[in-house]
């Protein structure tokens, strides 16, 4: 009955492993991401009509198959370990999924607008976790937050906007310095640059924050059990994490749908030339996209910090790749898809772990990544709208 407490912080020296894994995920993504071909005609094509039929069938029903397997995993966990653990794990999956979802949205927004997998995004997550930690120390927010309920609210109202703005500026700056002049270069160039920026940020954090886990005191900010159902204790922290993520995601959705800047972002993503002809300032729109994506990563990092209480110089790289998988699962470029994908990945991570053992969680996640790219590269929600001639 070991309680699941989030992804283990990578051990020191694991950078090499993380890097090679990230690298291969990226390469698969690059060749498979071309969102134009909805149905995979690829690797199994030569093995006869039966295989092709099967492949087509899997592509068509991929979402159902995946959801079915997840339901099966949840059910099996209930049967094997009892309903309480199952409930506990659902809660954990939602908490973890909320964090993945917020980070995945940043990947998907940037990919949607400039077709770049922003590998530095995960590290912006880590950096903004440290920003929040810094603001908390600077303004003595820990004692404020633990003092009274009003103090907690005040601390949150201080730490969220400040960290989100700082992260947003970081993200926009990264785009300005590293990606902007490569916008018309071959796609590989900005991608490699993104990996470079990722290493740069990690290097800076390693120097500044040191190689070990850094305990933030934010885990003590929110305490206590809100309620319990069937033996599952749901804490205020859990509610806060999930609620905050949902609020931010719905706010983003409304922003993108209704505001002028949001519409500029959508149209730039769909056709940059046409957006220019409409008088949209493309540079400013792309900067805004990086700003918002990074600000959401900051919110995710604060939530992470409040929930798990530790940060480390390289947590974001790992978490980022998993969040990226969530973005691909939902259909890269699709904001709603990234949100849902985050929660689905949370479920796969937690229940994969509870069925096969925690060491299999990540293998499962990346197996899912490979399966999506093989059978359904447009993702679960990637419905193609073709432009007719």
């Amino acid at each position, binding site marked *: 009955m070991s309680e699941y407490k989030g992804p283990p912080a990578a051990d020191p020296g694991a950078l090499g492993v993380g890097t090679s894994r990230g690298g291969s995920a990226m390469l698969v993504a690059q060749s498979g991401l071309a969102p134009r071909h909805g149905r995979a005609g690829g690797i199994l094509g030569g093995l006869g009509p039966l295989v092709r039929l099967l492949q087509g069938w899997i592509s068509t029903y991929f979402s159902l198959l995946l959801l079915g397997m997840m339901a099966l995993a949840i059910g099996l966990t209930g049967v094997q370990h009892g309903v309480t653990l199952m409930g506990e794990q659902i809660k954990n999956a939602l908490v973890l999924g909320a964090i993945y979802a917020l980070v995945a949205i940043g990947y998907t927004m940037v990919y949607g607008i400039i077709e770049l997998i922003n590998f530095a995004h995960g590290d912006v997550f880590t950096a903004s976790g440290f920003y929040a930690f810094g603001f908390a120390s600077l303004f003595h927010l820990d004692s404020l937050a633990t003092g009274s309920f009003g103090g907690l609210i005040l601390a949150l109202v201080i730490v969220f906007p400040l960290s989100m703005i700082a992260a947003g500026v970081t993200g926009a700056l990264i785009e300005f310095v590293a990606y902007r002049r490569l916008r018309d270069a071959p796609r590989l160039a900005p991608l490699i640059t993104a990996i470079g920026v990722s290493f740069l940020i990690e290097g800076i954090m390693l120097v500044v924050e040191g190689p070990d886990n850094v305990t933030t005191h934010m885990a003590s900010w929110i305490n206590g059990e809100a309620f319990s159902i069937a033996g599952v204790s749901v804490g205020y922290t859990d509610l806060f994490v999930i609620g905050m993520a949902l609020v931010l995601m719905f706010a983003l959705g409304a922003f993108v749908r209704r505001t002028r800047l949001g519409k500029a972002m959508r149209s730039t993503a769909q056709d940059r030339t046409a957006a*220019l002809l409409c008088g949209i300032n493309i540079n400013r729109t792309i900067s805004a996209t990086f700003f918002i994506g990074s600000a959401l990563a900051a919110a995710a990092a604060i939530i992470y910090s409040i929930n798990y209480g530790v940060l480390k110089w390289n947590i974001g790289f790992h978490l980022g790749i998993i969040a990226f998988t969530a973005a691909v699962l939902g259909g890269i470029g699709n904001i709603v898809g990234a949100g849902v994908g985050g929660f689905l990945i949370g479920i796969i991570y937690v229940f994969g772990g509870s069925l096969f053992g925690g060491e299999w969680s990540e293998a499962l996640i990346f197996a899912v990544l490979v399966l999506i790219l093989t059978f359904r590269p447009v993702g679960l929600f990637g419905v193609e709208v073709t432009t007719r001639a």
Partner: protein
Amino acid sequence: MSENGQSVAAPDSAGGVDKVIDLREIDVYYGRVNALSKVTLEVRQGEIVALIGSNGAGKTTTLRTISGLISPRTGEVRLFGKTTRGMGAAQIARLGVGHAPEGRRLFPRMTVRENLDMGAYSRGDRAGIRTDLESVYTLFPRLRERDSQLAGSLSGGEQQMVAIGRALMSSPKVLLLDEPSLGLAPILVDAIFEVIREINAKGTTILLIEQNALLALKTAVRGYVLETGSVALSGPAEELIASPDIQRAYLGM
């Protein structure tokens, strides 16, 4: 001024104040490929001007240069009497250039209404936007019916209507139309050209690219014929239609 272009009946450049578009000997390159050489062209206030020529002659490149999507290597683009050197496409659009580009380039995952709204992106006058939306819907009643449908799911003719409508929503002083009839059924082609004349009658200057040279010249007051990146002929439309060279090469007579 144009060495390559021998005018049929030289439309002498008058004044300069009423020149909405004024291209002065522009050279445009795609990488090392010379797409336009020494193109000189002007469009005056209130005119419909047709740009004709075979595929690859540089018609689309000319429009893209005017709206700032490409910059000329030499020569000058002047709009409304001012040079556009150093301006980006977005800035030029805000000067009052509406461009319905080649291939329509709608925002496929936005509705018809949202596409039209994007055309008015840089405007602040809500009342004016509402009036213009209403007049676009009057020109193309079909679009009102399809209002909340995704642009990517429309038929070719409807997409063309959205493309023109979106360009009109910026309340442009000059409208650049790139092959408005491409891929449309003949009956729709006539309807679109009827609308083009209507738009012009309301005071919008139009520069039009069209494969169907006869239709284009019948609609326009003046025409330019592009051949391999240079102006081969220019002049009043009816004289171009009457020219034996044009008849042989473009009108199939």
